[in-house]
């Protein structure tokens, strides 16, 4: 893979950097990968080769490239840790590990954090990232050097090939409104970052299991004059970590000499985070948890597994009444019955069931029991059929 032709400028009112990705050993089309942000942050945007290295490394490995040649200098520490991340992901995926030679045209050089660069976190509007900002706000008051000055909202990564569609843009605008409302009255600034890094490989499974945090960090690295420490909220507590593309073993591998990347929030379970979020009504009222793209004016569909799970959790903690993020004011048992099965996080549903039982919502628990039984049956069938899959 060759990464070259870095460009930087302002187009349609937004600042951008871009690079050309050309495959050498794989028969895939040339792509221009773009990272964009609001024009207000143009001075902090930089066509950093490290950003494009992080964007291209895992797709290049996946498609059999033997090297990644990139214009400019790259961080030697990043080059080493990318190889380690790739080994971990290969092991999790049951593949033999393979190394990819990184060939920077200007050699290896560790960048330094810019003076004034501060701490920031990813904010999607979901439970985990909202809890990250809540706990930081209470632990590090405004003006503290460790308070989160920037909340990065990643656009374009959820919908791969549709990243540039008007529908995706309209959805992003709605989410931004919610996030702005969440942060209103705080000193944290919302920094939207749009990128099409998934154009290199739009496969959803690859994105979730391998590319997830790499796609985020690639975008943030282009803004590394604004940030020196990026915090990514964990989706699970320390005892229930899954093998996903964002993980405490993976995320720090995308650190450079100028940007430290941490995977944080391993202390609390999802239910505990929701209970704590009751201290931040603006976050509860503006939650964005849906993995789909609901119709206007909603940001959550209210029917997918994640939406239903979140609504039930809010119900269990008495927070559903305050919520205007979902199209429905409450969850009926039929909505749970329509979920086919749970995606590998059964303990989350068991915790939801326990919380609902504690809250006296016995009308909902039989449907959850049935869902868990359905999931157990499907998981068994999957295990039996796995050896016969191509």
């Amino acid at each position, binding site marked *: 893979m060759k990464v070259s032709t870095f460009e930087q400028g302002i187009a349609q009112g937004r600042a951008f950097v871009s690079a050309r990705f050309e495959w050498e050993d794989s028969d895939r089309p040339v792509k221009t990968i773009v990272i964009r942000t609001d024009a207000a942050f143009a001075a902090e945007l930089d066509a950093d080769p490290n950003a494009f290295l992080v964007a291209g490394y895992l797709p290049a490995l996946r498609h059999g490239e033997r090297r990644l040649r990139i214009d400019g200098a790259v961080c030697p*520490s990043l080059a080493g840790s990318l190889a*380690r991340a790739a080994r971990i992901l290969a092991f*999790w995926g049951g593949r033999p590990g393979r190394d990819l030679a990184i060939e920077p045209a200007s050699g290896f050089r*560790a960048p330094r954090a810019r003076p004034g660069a501060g701490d920031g976190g990813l904010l999607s509007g979901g439970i985990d990232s909202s809890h990250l900002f809540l*706990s930081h706000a209470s632990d590090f008051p405004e003006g503290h050097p*460790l308070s989160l000055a920037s909340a990065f909202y990643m656009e374009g990564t959820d919908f791969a090939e549709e990243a540039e569609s008007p529908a995706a843009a309209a959805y992003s605008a709605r989410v931004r409104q919610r996030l702005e409302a969440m942060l209103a009255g705080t000193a944290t600034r919302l920094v939207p970052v749009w990128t099409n890094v998934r154009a290199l490989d739009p496969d959803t499974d690859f994105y979730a299991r391998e590319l997830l945090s790499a796609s985020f960090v690639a975008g943030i690295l282009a803004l590394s004059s604004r940030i020196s420490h990026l915090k990514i909220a964990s989706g699970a507590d*320390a005892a229930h970590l899954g093998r996903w593309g964002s993980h*405490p*073993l993976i995320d720090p591998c995308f650190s450079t000499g100028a940007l430290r990347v941490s995977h944080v929030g391993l*202390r609390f379970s999802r239910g505990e985070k929701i209970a704590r979020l009751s201290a931040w009504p603006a976050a509860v009222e503006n939650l964005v948890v849906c993995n789909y793209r609901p119709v206007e004016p909603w940001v959550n569909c209210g029917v997918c597994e994640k939406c239903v799970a979140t609504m039930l959790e809010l119900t269990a903690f008495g927070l559903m009444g305050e919520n205007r993020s979902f199209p429905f004011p409450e969850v009926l048992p039929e909505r749970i019955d329509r979920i086919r099965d749970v995606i590998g996080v059964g303990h989350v549903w068991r915790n939801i069931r326990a919380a609902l039982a504690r809250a006296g919502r016995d009308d909902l628990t039989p449907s959850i029991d049935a869902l868990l039984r359905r999931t157990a049956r499907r998981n068994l069938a999957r295990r039996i059929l796995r050896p016969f899959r191509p």
Partner: protein
Amino acid sequence: MRISNIRRVASRGAVRVVADVFWEDTARPPREIWFEVGEDRAEGFAPAGEAFLPVCLPLALRQGERRIRVEGRVCPGLRDGAGAAARLLGSWYGAKHEEIAIEAEDGFSAEPREGEGIAASFLTGGVDSTFTLLANHRAFEEGHPQRIREAILVSGLFASEADSPDLAAEFDGRVRRSASAVAASAGIPLTIVRTNARELEPGFDFFARELHGALLASVAHLLAGRISSARIAATTTIRHLVPSGTHPLLDPLWSSSRVEIAHDGFGLTRVEKTAALASWPETLENLMVCQAGPVPDGYFNCGRCEKCVRTLLCFLAAGALDRARSFRRREVSPRIVLRGRFDSEVANQWRPLRKAFCRRGLRALSAAIALKLIRSRLDPPRRVESPETYGARTNRP
């Protein structure tokens, strides 16, 4: 558990930070826990309640204490990390209580650092920690904030596993000489720290599986007056990762807003690390991996114990056996491999060697290792705790 009366005591050329540990739910007498450095390295070595949180938390968890209360203030980042560490350790080994309460007498707040701290790394003079130092100095040029500018050796940690006090002293002296020489080769000072922390819960098993990284993190937090990060060298790869006291998931959880604790070099095999070290000749003179002993003057390694043979094979795989000059004997052969013994605890460290020799066409060595790996599976698993399986006696061929 309560940790209180934290104080700094200076005497006879050394400075000690001491705390009193009181058990609340366990019928155990109060104990003093202390960490000590030489007077010349005591700048920035200061009493801090939060520094005792990492080292005491695994002890409190093991004994089923319901809370751990620390004198002074605690960084909220460390509080959350310690809470996550308790969850992780509980998921690995089971816990008597669902949760342990973490309390600080002066509350939870983060003091901003005045000025920049320096990057530090724990160093024993062995393959892993020396590689961490080498890789860091290659990645970060002089003056870069992430370049390691101080090495830390926690001395005497394994004294209770030695066969005799004389052997313990010999081993400790060798580690000190090795680490000092490696640090000097890298042009950085070495801070030697002593502690009695292991006496609170004797037994190598507990130390290896739960305490190791936490104890090192406590040392780093006591040095927060001058260091901003401390690296703990990894010893394994993802393929062979098992729950352990120093672990890539666990170690970073002991970080505070002032001191970042990093688990460094995870994912590389010992063969790869040795190959990298082979290009740093001044270090090879002082590399020390041997836990047997005594070793005659002029050498750091006996060259005959399991760890020595394994490391020599790594040098052979890297094509640098002639450069392993700190080993008294440098002979490796299929016969030596077959004669030695190792159990399933270290079998994972041998697997990459078998592959490396297979790739290099050294089939006899590869076959000998394969045979040993099969035999290690047949051996009944042994607990690390027993002196039969660790320390000077065990590692003899």
